[in-house]
């Protein structure tokens, strides 16, 4: 009923496991999948997770897969919309609770998500971000419906306080029967494996990437006679804005030609404003407020140094973007940041004010003496380090592997929940899983699958979306968003 077996795909996967150089010739061409990306965070919200999902989807569409995105409604943006290249986005009207994350009840999203999965004939559900309740819901429902699941984690978590303990437990429950997990750095993999007590073999590391055509250097935008430090991040506690508030007065006192350019918005903005007022630094510290994604590059190229003061980070795309624009990068040594850039492109410091000041001093001295590499050379090096097409290729391999695996039927799933997640949580969620299954049966009786019209494909094998003639232009540059409003 709700379960599907992938017996036919076992042959496919076994042939891939034996792949090596000689077997590449005889390899069965990988099948095209129907993928549904689910997350709370997507356009028009801008951020790391959002651009990751968008870029990955565009590259997968290029490879011929069918990709559909499900997220929650943003304000008046509800219903079905199409983005570049026929990427279909479902903005589902689910209530947003806090910080763009929907309320999680494990049930209220089942009818709509089931509709999406059935009418688009989805084979793989790929959920993003552990902060997103909708992603966890989607994983839960996909398993009840017998679809393969993949989860990508974008952040690091602590272990010690009460909220972390609860969150980690929920993550364990959510991931215990997921087919595959992807993390963005090795540090993140360790963190996730420990938090959710996962089998490390089903966790892969696929780092993020940056679009090099969007972030090109432009030294002519820099102002001579001064050294500008650029900070672009959300102004929240975990991005270390308090540290920044301590650095600014010290350094500005020592170096009269130092300027700060700070972009982003958040509750900690008041700290920076008070520092600015207390030390009369209005002309040297500029607070730009929330920046549109298209304006980020314009701000970055105005600086010489990019500063990142996060207290915890799984994989920092911001420093990649900064380096891609040819800036010198100074950052705290936390989380997965040491894995991102090679040693000579980044200066790492401890997350204290003194250490960051020392690090910045060395970089400023180098900048003054002129012994820094040119922005163009930095850009050339970074451009080859990470590309989205590489990410898409690796993710495709994950899908191929996953589509060969079986989805646990209900009895095995319940046993696994109870065995793996501990007595209390396991039993509660086993109960919830049973209720979910019964709710699914009820829905299948009230609104059977045969009453749903199959969607007309815009991407994938039977694509109907017309190809634009100038398809060499990168997907992000294309501003064509076909809005068919609903």
């Amino acid at each position, binding site marked *: 009923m709700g379960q599907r077996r992938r017996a036919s795909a076992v042959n496919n996967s076994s042939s891939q496991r034996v792949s090596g150089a000689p077997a590449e010739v005889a390899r069965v061409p990988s099948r095209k999948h129907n993928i549904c990306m689910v997350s709370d965070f997507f356009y028009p919200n801008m951020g790391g997770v959002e651009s990751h999902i968008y870029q990955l989807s565009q590259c997968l569409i290029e490879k011929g897969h069918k990709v559909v995105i499900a997220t929650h409604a943003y304000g008046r943006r509800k219903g079905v919309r199409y983005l570049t290249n026929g990427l279909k986005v479902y903005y589902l009207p689910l209530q947003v609770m806090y910080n763009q994350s929907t309320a999680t009840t494990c049930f209220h999203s089942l009818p*709509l998500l089931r*509709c999406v999965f059935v009418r688009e004939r989805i084979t793989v559900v790929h959920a993003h971000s552990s902060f997103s309740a909708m992603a966890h819901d989607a994983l839960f429902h996909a398993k009840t419906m017998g679809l393969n699941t993949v989860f990508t984690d974008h952040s690091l978590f602590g272990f010690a306080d009460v909220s972390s303990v609860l969150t980690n437990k929920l993550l364990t429950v959510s991931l215990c029967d997921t087919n595959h997990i992807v993390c963005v750095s090795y540090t993140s993999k360790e963190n996730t494996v420990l938090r959710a007590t996962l089998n490390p073999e089903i966790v892969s590391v696929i780092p993020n990437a940056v679009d090099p055509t969007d972030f090109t250097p432009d030294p002519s935008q820099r102002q001579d006679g001064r050294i500008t430090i650029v900070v672009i991040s959300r102004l929240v506690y975990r991005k270390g804005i308090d540290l920044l508030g301590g650095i600014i007065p010290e350094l500005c006192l020592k170096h009269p030609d130092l300027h700060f350019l700070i972009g982003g918005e958040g509750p900690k903005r008041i700290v920076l404003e008070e520092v600015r007022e207390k030390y009369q630094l209005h002309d040297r510290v500029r607070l730009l407020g929330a920046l549109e994604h298209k304006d980020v590059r314009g701000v970055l190229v105005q600086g010489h140094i990019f500063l990142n003061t996060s207290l915890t980070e799984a994989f920092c795309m911001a420093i990649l973007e900064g380096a891609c624009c040819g800036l010198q990068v100074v950052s705290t040594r936390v989380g997965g940041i040491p894995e991102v850039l090679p040693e000579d492109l980044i200066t790492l410091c401890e997350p204290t004010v003194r250490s960051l000041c020392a690090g910045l001093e060395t970089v400023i001295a180098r900048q003054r003496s002129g012994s820094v590499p040119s922005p163009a050379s930095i850009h050339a090096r970074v451009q080859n380090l990470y590309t989205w097409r590489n990410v898409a290729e690796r993710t495709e391999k994950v899908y191929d592997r996953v589509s060969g695996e079986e989805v646990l039927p209900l009895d095995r799933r319940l046993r696994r929940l109870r065995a793996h997640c501990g007595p209390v949580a396991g039993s509660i969620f086993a109960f919830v899983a049973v209720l979910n299954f019964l709710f699914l049966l009820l829905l299948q009786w009230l*609104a059977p699958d045969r009453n749903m*019209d199959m969607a007309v494909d815009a991407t994938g094998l039977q694509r109907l979306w017309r190809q634009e003639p100038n398809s060499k232009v990168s997907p992000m540059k294309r501003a064509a968003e076909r809005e068919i409003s609903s």
Partner: protein
Amino acid sequence: MMEDEAFTDINGKSISLDCQNHSGFCREFTVSSSKVSIGKVMVYTSGVWLLAYTVFFFTENTAVLTCAILVTLVGMMLHIHFVKVDHESLLVIGSLGIQVSSSYASGRETTTFIEQSKIKDIVINEAIYMHQIIYYLCVLLKDPSEPDVVSSVVPLFQSSKPRLNCLVKVYKSCQEILSKC
């Protein structure tokens, strides 16, 4: 030319589509939903009366029974006059416009006529309706002074909600006429 095939709506109930070709550039499409089912009426009436009788049994007040009868009658009248749609029709007259009308079970008809200069296109669109995602046919309107901007959307066949196969048929037929004029 009259054609009558069996289609269903999004909930699985059967509806019928009737295409009449009045002329080369004038066509009328009528979608008829199922009639008021006697079973449902009996169930509702019996339910209300049983409830009223139980209340009467405890309170010994005959006004309750009168109330129940009145409620049933008024409810039924309101339902067939304002809620229950018998059939909806779309009349496409090339170079004049499009007329959309719904006819209720009591015989009342509401009609809207949209002039050709205001019509931009007729398209099939997807939307989220309650707990489902459905296809629906709609007319895109434009302001004659701004021909590139869609000023509003008028959905068609809102009460009968036919499925994609029926919509595609109507859509193809309409596009033939709209492209000629």
